């Protein structure tokens, strides 16, 4: 058996063991024949079988707001927040990275805003932008922007002066230097921030959905709804779906990142 197969086998084994233990432990009654009294109460953490049933039900067309619609809403807002955050963060990082004085002037504001716990902004964002898609995107943006901004800023500042000189000797004008030396150097740093950015975008969106109510939709709404109805199974469905979405998006971005940074030695060792 190859090493890879062995690792996969162990992973599957652990998953099965965990699910079985969960299913089994939550089925043991504290006092026999007394209904509703368990050693480990499925009321709080549900059971795999119940979660699977709810999953099928919520994903079916029988519900008004299906799981698919909610997942789509979450993914959509996350991607919007990601795209807007990355592009504005990149532009700002590049601008400030190349303008020493502007960066010095703005530094305290940037640090102050970045130190602010983003979750504290949720009520304000809700007041201004309401409960819909826009509010979620704005929240994701406030997080992603800074991750990308700081990375790009570093990259734009740390451009190797010798590369700039050699470009100049090869006949480059200022705009050509920007396009062929500074932007690629900074982009290398920006790309490295993409994977954390998509994860943080998802966090921002879910936080927005937790407060956003039905008009925002999304899996975060399913969580608050489940809390309202004390339905642990539905909550688990939402959590599992969010986990899956998070993994798929992170892997997708990682793939893009590897492709864009294929010139870097550390990305050559792994085969994409």
């Amino acid at each position, binding site marked *: 058996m190859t090493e890879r197969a062995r690792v996969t086998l162990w992973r599957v084994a652990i998953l099965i063991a965990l699910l079985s233990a969960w299913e089994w432990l939550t089925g043991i009654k504290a006092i026999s024949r007394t209904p509703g009294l368990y050693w480990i109460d499925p009321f709080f953490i549900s059971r795999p079988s119940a979660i699977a049933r709810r999953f099928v039900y919520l994903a079916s067309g029988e519900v008004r707001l299906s799981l698919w619609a909610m997942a789509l809403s979450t993914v959509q807002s996350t991607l919007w927040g990601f795209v807007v955050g990355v592009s504005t963060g990149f532009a700002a990082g590049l601008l400030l990275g190349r303008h020493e004085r502007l960066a010095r002037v703005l530094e305290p504001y940037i640090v102050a805003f970045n130190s602010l716990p983003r979750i504290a902004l949720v009520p304000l964002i809700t007041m201004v932008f309401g409960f819909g898609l826009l509010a979620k995107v704005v929240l994701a943006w406030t997080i992603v922007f800074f991750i990308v901004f700081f990375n790009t800023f570093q990259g734009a500042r740390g451009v*190797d002066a*010798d*590369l700039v*000189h*050699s*470009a*100049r*000797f*090869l*006949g*480059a*004008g200022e705009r*050509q230097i920007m396009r*062929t*030396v500074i932007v*690629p150097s900074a982009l*290398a740093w920006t790309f490295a921030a993409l994977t954390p950015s998509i994860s943080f975008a998802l966090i921002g969106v879910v936080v927005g959905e937790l407060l956003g109510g039905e008009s925002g939709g999304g899996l975060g709404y399913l969580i608050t709804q489940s809390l309202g109805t004390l339905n642990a199974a539905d909550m688990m469905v939402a959590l599992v779906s969010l986990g899956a979405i998070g993994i798929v998006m992170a892997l997708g971005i990682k793939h893009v990142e590897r492709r864009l940074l*294929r*010139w*870097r*030695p550390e990305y*050559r060792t792994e085969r994409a």
Partner: protein
Amino acid sequence: MERAAFEVLEGEFVAIVGPSGCGKSTILNMIGGLVVPSSGAVLIDGAPVEARAPRHVGYVFQKDTVFPWRTVARNIALGLEYRGVAAPERARRVREAVALAGLAGFEDAFPATLSGGMRQRVALMRTLVVDPEILLMDEPFGALDTHTKLTLHAELLRLWEARRQTVVFVTHDLSEAITLADRIVVLTRRPGRVKAVHEVKLTRPRDVIALRESDEYAGEYGQLWHILGEELAEHDGRRT
């Protein structure tokens, strides 16, 4: 540096040697317009060098300045791109340069996958492909092993024989200077002054391997060593 005056003729290969820290690279940077001399001037064809890099000057740095995110071919194409050379013409000249430098088959390779010698070859071709009249080289082979160095010496000489650019080559390696140059400017210790200008009387074209075994080479080396040795002895004498 003070009173460092020397002349480089058109089509001449001049090497600058001297103890480290004496300002060899500074001279090159002044010629290239990267550094403005505090007094005095650098004249090219009688006109003073502006603070900007002149377009007909090529510069090969000691440090690896190949753009890591561009393939070999796209690195070599840089200067042509900057000058707005049309794509078909660009491709043709890059192909020529790649063949000339023995880089065929590596056009689409990223620099990270190449050896130091090959990367420096890319840097050299990238500079030569735009056909500079003056070529400034700052210890371009300093970081390479002896074998690679000799190979690149041979190639540089071959390329130079064909074009005869004016070359100013900074190095601390006497053998390198003798192998390549027509004349060698020897600088003194800090503050760097011109100690001597030594004429290398070896015939061209030169065979970089056979050359080293010749008596003429040994003679040149001896003379240069003497000039430099004087410099070292003087310095030590002053100290003690």
